[in-house]
């Protein structure tokens, strides 16, 4: 998965970002000042950076120029339209105001990574190999057939592994936002997925919420 630089001076939020991104399989490095971020960016190869605008020694807007060409997602308490426009005009890939929804942050990170072709397209677990790009799935080396909805469900679970997704979220991802089907449809397809992949214990049912693919290496 991707290697992401987190530049945030608030310890609690920095740790939250690192932990949330680590849940879905990303590797992270935390910097608390602009100088530290520049040093890290020079010494390591990152796929993208998540940048706070207000830092103790500099502001994120000026730091953005020093981190180029690293794709940057701004995360700031300054959520005014003028700040967002400034950030985007300076070349940021995205701008997310605080407080943010964890799933929204993960989705936006995914978009930035996909745009830079840095998103991992292969996933392996318990003898199951999934190629998200070629849309193929093999179990113990033997290819199996999944319906488009089953594959879309599988992709959503893999991209958000260790994060619970509600039935509504799964429905909208696999069937589209306009689909008027019942939540029960998701349950049926999840049962089929579990059976086909042998992931009865990996895809957990979260009470009164939905499902979560659990995989902690």
């Amino acid at each position, binding site marked *: 998965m991707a290697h992401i630089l987190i530049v945030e001076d608030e310890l609690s939020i920095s740790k939250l970002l690192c*932990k949330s991104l680590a849940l879905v399989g990303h590797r992270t490095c935390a910097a608390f000042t602009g100088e530290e971020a520049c040093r890290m960016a020079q010494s390591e190869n990152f796929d993208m950076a998540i940048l706070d605008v207000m830092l*103790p020694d500099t502001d994120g807007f000026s730091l953005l120029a020093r981190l180029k060409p690293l794709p940057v997602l701004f995360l700031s*308490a300054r959520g005014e339209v003028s700040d967002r426009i400034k950030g985007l005009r300076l070349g940021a890939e995205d701008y997310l105001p605080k407080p943010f929804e964890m799933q929204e942050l993960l989705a936006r990170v995914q978009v930035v990574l996909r745009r830079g072709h840095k998103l991992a397209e292969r996933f392996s677990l318990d003898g199951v190999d999934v190629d998200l790009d070629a849309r193929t799935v093999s179990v113990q080396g033997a290819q199996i057939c999944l319906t488009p909805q089953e594959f879309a469900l599988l992709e959503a679970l893999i991209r958000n592994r*260790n994060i619970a997704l509600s039935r509504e979220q799964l429905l909208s991802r696999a069937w589209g936002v306009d689909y008027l089907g019942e939540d029960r449809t998701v349950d049926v397809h999840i049962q089929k997925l579990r059976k086909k992949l042998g992931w009865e214990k990996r895809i957990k049912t979260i009470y009164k919420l939905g499902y979560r693919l659990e995989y902690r290496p």
Partner: protein
Amino acid sequence: MKTAKLWHRQYAATLLLFLCVFYACVFFLSQSSFLSAFRSETQAVVREHAMIARSIWIEQAALQSRGGTSEAAEQAIAAEYGAYYGRRGMYLCYFDAAGKALYSNMPEGLMPERADAGILQTAPDGKGVRYFLLTGPAGTGFLSYAREAETLLDGQRRYSLLLVGVAALFALSMAMGLYVMLRRVYRPMDRLAHELRTPLTAIHGYAQYIALGALREEERMEAARFIEAESGRLRGVADTLLSLSTLRYGEASMERIRVAALFQRVSKIYPQLHTTVETPFITGDAALLESLLINLVDNAVHASPEGMSIELIARENRFFVLDRGTGMGEAACRRLNDPGAGGAPSGKGTGLGIPLCHEIAAMHRAKLRFYVRDGGGCVARLEFLQSSDNSKMKWKQRYGSMGKKGKENPS
């Protein structure tokens, strides 16, 4: 184009509305004043024309009664009046009944017409100077009367320019006043919104992390600890806000305080504090002054390397807090010295500590100022303006502004 903040837009809209109404009033004032002067001037023109016309009629009637009038006699009468009024800046042109001009001393280029009879108008001469011009019956013929209008028009132009200039100055001062006032109201709110967002982000994020993530027990516990810590921070912001609100509208109990005892209480919290007491007593609210000193010392401790000594000095009517920490720039100093700016530009605190200190200082009729210390670090100076040592008095002090600038460093 840079998108403006909401309050900038509100400011611009208010200012625009004000300018529209204000300049409409100025225009109305200028026009009404001009119309009044114009009316009185035209009335004078009509009055004088009537008077001359009547005089000519009387003279012609007298000639008629003595045996008849002639073109030459009418011309002579008109010339006599023309010469007399010409010396007073009024010009005449006399036409006979057939419309033939018998006499004229009109300025060059000013050509009255017999057909314009009964119409009061302003007309320019060959040099562009404007005149009031009125033509009407006079005896057996018609009389055109002209009187210079340039003085009135020029006066009106100057008056309008003066009015616009004064209005522009007034509008500029109003615009600046309004901006300063709105900034004073909105800037602490901006800062507060930011200070609330940070703990809220953490609490919200960790709550989602616990609810949605596949976590181990220790991860869950750590997230819960962060939620607890950030809730405490949120409570701190609320407490500070409450203190600020109480201070702005409340009372301070002023009493004679032993400075050594006050410093000792602060030293108990910060063992690295090195105190010097040259002023034995000060008048003030002990609890509030202690809170203020704790705030200042806490800032100094956070800015200094661990274990480095901080100095707290009482000298004459001043308290000083000196550190050799990371220091700050002149811009940060200016920001700290502005009671309405809302504290340091970035930091780990609530950002409301400095405004609280300014409020406490204002209640004690004291001035709080921050300076960059020579050789690195920072100086916070609290100067009590009143030297009264009255025992037990209560007074209300609403929010006050900082006074003149001055740099003093006891080190």
